[in-house]
């Protein structure tokens, strides 16, 4: 399939590479031209604008930072779009913003799908991302061959915006999950108990989770390299809290967690992995 790909950051680059590996014809565009070079070397065409990335393609995918970026590149996509184009945004943005962009593109005859991902850089490289899609059945079917190259657990959650709602739910669970593991470790350490043994013991029971296994191990290794930067998790939790505010949903746990991530950004831990919340807890418990 002929696919345009916009946004070649930590996530976008390996995702685009996996599309090439899957045998698709890929045209890329990124704000920083030099980030297109590795993709060109791997066989992609480079475009000079978002419109160029859409031109002559059946599918265009964006993977950028935030809603205004998505809106901006999609305005370009409209310029270059051929009739019947399906546009898929895999960034994490507010559900309401995704619905709005979907309506705007529908008016231009483009079928838009929100399809944010979970699984981080590791999942992007391995092609094992979880993909949560919102939009029409037809768009989902058209995007399926591309999704299959990038992800493993691919779910059509519902109508436009539903993918972003699922992603927001994902960030509630992962945000609180990382904080829960960090709190357990801070608690164990303050009690003078070996955290690695605690982790090992817990892995066999109901407290088992991927986060306890993977993030927990990185906490033990004190490997705070991102992964997933805590400022991005903070941004995503802000989407959750703003949506909850608009709808009147009571989320006490997520609200408390969002403030911990807020404190991380404010205290200079924003560029570290979200597991650096452990450092913040240690600081607040006299362990650092």
């Amino acid at each position: 399939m002929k696919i345009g790909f916009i946004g070649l950051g930590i996530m976008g680059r390996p995702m685009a590479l996996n599309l090439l590996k899957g045998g698709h014809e890929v045209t890329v565009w990124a704000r920083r031209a030099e980030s297109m070079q590795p993709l060109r070397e791997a066989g992609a065409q480079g475009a000079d604008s978002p419109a160029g990335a859409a031109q002559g393609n059946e599918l265009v995918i964006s993977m950028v930072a935030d809603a205004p970026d998505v809106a901006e590149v999609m305005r370009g996509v409209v310029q270059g779009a051929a009739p019947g184009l399906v546009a898929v945004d895999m960034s994490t943005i507010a559900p309401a913003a995704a619905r709005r962009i979907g309506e705007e593109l529908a008016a231009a005859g483009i079928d838009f799908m929100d399809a944010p991902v979970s699984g981080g850089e590791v999942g992007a490289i391995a092609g094992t991302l979880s993909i949560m899609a919102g939009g029409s059945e037809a768009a989902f079917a058209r995007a399926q061959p591309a999704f299959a190259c990038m992800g493993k657990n691919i779910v059509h959650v519902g109508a436009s915006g539903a993918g972003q709602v699922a992603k927001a739910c994902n960030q509630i669970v992962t945000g609180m999950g990382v904080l829960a593991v960090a709190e357990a470790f801070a608690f164990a350490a303050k009690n003078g108990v070996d955290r690695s043994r605690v982790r090992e013991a817990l892995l066999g029971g109901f407290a088992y989770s991927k986060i306890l296994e993977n993030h927990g191990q990185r906490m033990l290794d004190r490997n705070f390299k991102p992964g997933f930067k805590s400022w991005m998790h903070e941004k995503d939790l802000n989407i959750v809290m703003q949506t909850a505010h608009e709808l009147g949903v009571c989320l006490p746990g997520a609200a408390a967690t969002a403030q911990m991530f807020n404190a991380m950004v404010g205290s200079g831990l924003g560029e570290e992995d979200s597991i650096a919340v452990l450092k913040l807890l240690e600081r607040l418990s006299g362990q650092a």
Partner: protein
Amino acid sequence: MKVGFIGLGAMGRPMALHLQRAGHDLHVWARRPESAADLPATVCATPAELGRRCEVVFTIITSSADVEAVALGADGLSEGMAAGSVLVDCSTIAPDAARRIAGRLADEGIHMLDAPVSGGSQGAIDATLAIMAGGDAAVLERVRPLLACLGQRIVHVGPNGAGQVAKACNQMIMVAAIEAAAEAMRLAAAAGVDQARVRAALAGGSAGSRVLEVFGGRMVARDFAAGVEARLHHKDYGLVLEAARKSGVPVPLTAAVSQQLNALMSLGWGDDDTASLLRVLERSAGDVSRTR
């Protein structure tokens, strides 16, 4: 002096009347003209017309977007107000929105003060509002005689936006105190103790506060008619959390209280008084007393 007033709600109406009673020539504009019909004022067709006629214009409306539209939009104040005239915005809006609007008006030579108020509709009626002003000190001195018609405590907090920051701080402390009062009243009732007596006992001590007096009183009387509509506190909490986020300042208690406000909204009490936080707690757990 020719004074303009926009926003004739529960706060704005008594404030406008105080200015008129002090001898000022009151001009008003209202989105629904009928809401201004019974006022002793000249009713203007647009904010621009009001701006043309007045030296000082007051606004007290709901959101940042509303203030932006009235001040800078089509037929807005900036189209009519002369250089050197003053906009006093008493609305509660985001500090950065206040700074942005002040900056745009300054380009036209129009002064602006952000001057949000605290004290509720009773304070507006009694002219006892606390007024927290942000903007140029000399401009504040020019309009101080007008502000003195509305409140007794008028503090120049700092440059534009500083008044809104102070108001955000005010809302954080006040609504958290309402939640604390509600939790205490709930605990007292659940323990089979008379809420009114607990409130009376606390009033003289370290936990005594204006919130416990006013909002605690409403809780005891189960009088949930607004005073201050809870939906406005909910709105303000959105602003506070956004400001905290932009500054990277953790506000764990504010965040917890904001979720109780979210629950209050979804339970349909947004138009009622914020004392309804008590009802949220009652809804979270039944009246079954646990003994252990």
